[in-house]
């Protein structure tokens, strides 16, 4: 079966746009991606839209109402933090199925404020702070502490992830924040849930990102192979049963399963990956995923961050965009935004943060509940 290519991809600068609506924010990225491909919405045969906050509000169709109501099939997907990547993958699937040649995938989110998770509802009395914490910073803190119990990972090592990603963001004009945060600043920031301080939590922002996908035939026909990015693997998993599931969301197993399948599908290994955008929703999470994605052996993630192997210029730069910690994390947009980041490097357009000679990159998102998506992308020409 022939390959699928990304021929246009872009994102808006993440920020806060309370006066706009979600379709309008999504439409902006859609137009940017179409412009990047030199195509019009009138050329698209389908739209796959990822949005979480208004998942039942026909956001995809409303994006078409903003930019061109062409009558094509629209699918709205929701999959926690893997929402955008799921929409992208379904778009990819529709080309693999030979149903479409040219498809637009959009991820968009307009976020509320404050802590995610733990809201409760339900009957009886509120459980937050009574039966532990269900807030996201605490949940990912506990996941980090599981790593600490196994391998002695330290607060300082977790904090270094934020230092690195914030540093990367200073080279990314599309990041929400572009501010250096030295180690002592990160470690002395307000403690939210030990070991995650405020600067080790991803940023709630509004945002959108979009990609134009094309079949091999159409990519050639349009003469766009020189700027195309080949989708070498597209994998989605949920979490298989684990004994602590009910009280401790497992972000590891579904990531490991997805990584294994993705490397197999792409016919490459972790050693072939030139850069990674992974789901650093909290600093603790990034450490786990070094091992989950096979970037190092189990137990070596702490050393990896200590040695700068995942910083720009290191062995395998991770989250050159600034990551969710600094670029921001608009849930439904995140999956496509990291596809934008990796594609931009593969095309050699990443400016100051360019990973030299990047040929193959990997994107990873994971949403609790659970959905993990991994894409392996390669420069086409």
């Amino acid at each position, binding site marked *: 079966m022939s390959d699928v290519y990304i021929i246009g991809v872009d994102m808006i600068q993440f920020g806060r746009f309370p006066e706009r609506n979600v379709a309008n924010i999504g439409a902006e990225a859609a137009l940017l991606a179409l412009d990047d491909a030199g195509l019009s919405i009138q050329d698209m045969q389908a739209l796959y839209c990822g949005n979480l906050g208004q998942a039942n509000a026909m956001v995809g169709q409303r994006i078409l109402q903003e930019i061109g109501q062409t009558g094509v099939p629209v699918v709205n997907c929701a999959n926690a933090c893997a929402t955008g990547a799921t929409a992208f993958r379904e778009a990819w699937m529709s080309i693999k199925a030979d149903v479409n040649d040219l498809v637009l995938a959009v991820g968009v989110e307009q976020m509320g404020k404050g802590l995610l998770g733990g809201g409760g509802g339900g009957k*009886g009395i509120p459980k937050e702070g009574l039966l532990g914490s269900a807030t996201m910073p605490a949940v990912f*803190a506990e996941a980090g502490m599981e790593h600490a119990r196994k391998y002695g990972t330290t607060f300082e090592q977790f904090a270094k992830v934020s230092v690195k990603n914030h540093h990367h963001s200073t080279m990314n004009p599309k990041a929400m924040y572009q501010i250096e945060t030295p180690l002592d600043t990160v470690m002395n920031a307000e403690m939210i849930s030990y070991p995650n301080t405020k600067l080790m939590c991803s940023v709630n922002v509004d945002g959108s990102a979009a990609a134009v996908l094309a079949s091999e035939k159409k990519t050639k026909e349009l003469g766009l192979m020189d700027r195309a990015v080949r989708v070498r693997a597209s994998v989605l998993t949920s979490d298989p*049963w684990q004994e602590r599931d009910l009280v401790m969301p497992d972000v590891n197993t579904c990531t490991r399963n997805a990584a294994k399948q993705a490397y197999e599908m792409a016919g490459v290994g972790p050693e072939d990956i030139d850069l990674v955008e992974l789901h650093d929703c909290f600093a603790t999470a990034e450490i786990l995923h070094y091992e989950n994605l096979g970037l190092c052996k189990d137990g070596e993630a702490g050393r990896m961050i200590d040695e700068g192997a995942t910083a720009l210029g290191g062995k395998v730069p991770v989250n050159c965009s600034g990551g969710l910690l600094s670029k921001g994390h608009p849930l439904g947009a995140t999956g496509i935004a990291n596809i934008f980041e990796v594609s931009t490097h593969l095309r050699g357009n990443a400016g100051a943060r360019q990973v030299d000679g990047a040929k193959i990159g990997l994107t990873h998102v994971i949403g609790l509940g659970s959905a993990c998506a991994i894409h392996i992308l390669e420069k086409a020409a």
Partner: protein
Amino acid sequence: MAKETKTGKPLPAVPFLKLPEDGEPYLEGHKCKACGAVYLGERSVCAKCSARDQIEPTRLSDKGKLYAYSIVHRSFPGIEVPYVSAIVDLDGGGTVKGNLINVAADPAEIPFDMPVEVVYKDALGRKDKDGNSYVSYFFQPAG
């Protein structure tokens, strides 16, 4: 709930906390006879092995070991911080999450695998909209 309101007796904070009329409170698991998976709460199909109608209630142990935790310094408004959100593997099976009490909120004082015991107390004074009191479970270092 109306009936319980009238008796004035405290209610369990979660359904898997049992408050027998004539006995000590305990945590109830539901165990799959086919594969041994332990759940908190009733169910008819096993999420691990998909066996149907093989799940039976089982009394969980009041002893266990600290698996992982976080010290929570920021929570929702009105919730007292810091507190320790702890994940405990109970002896004999079942993993439960709850507040770890009677420890300092300091990672140096909270070793992994610390033996803990489950204790039952009033649910931090929280009441539902009908004014009912609740009993909850907590973990504390095993004495």
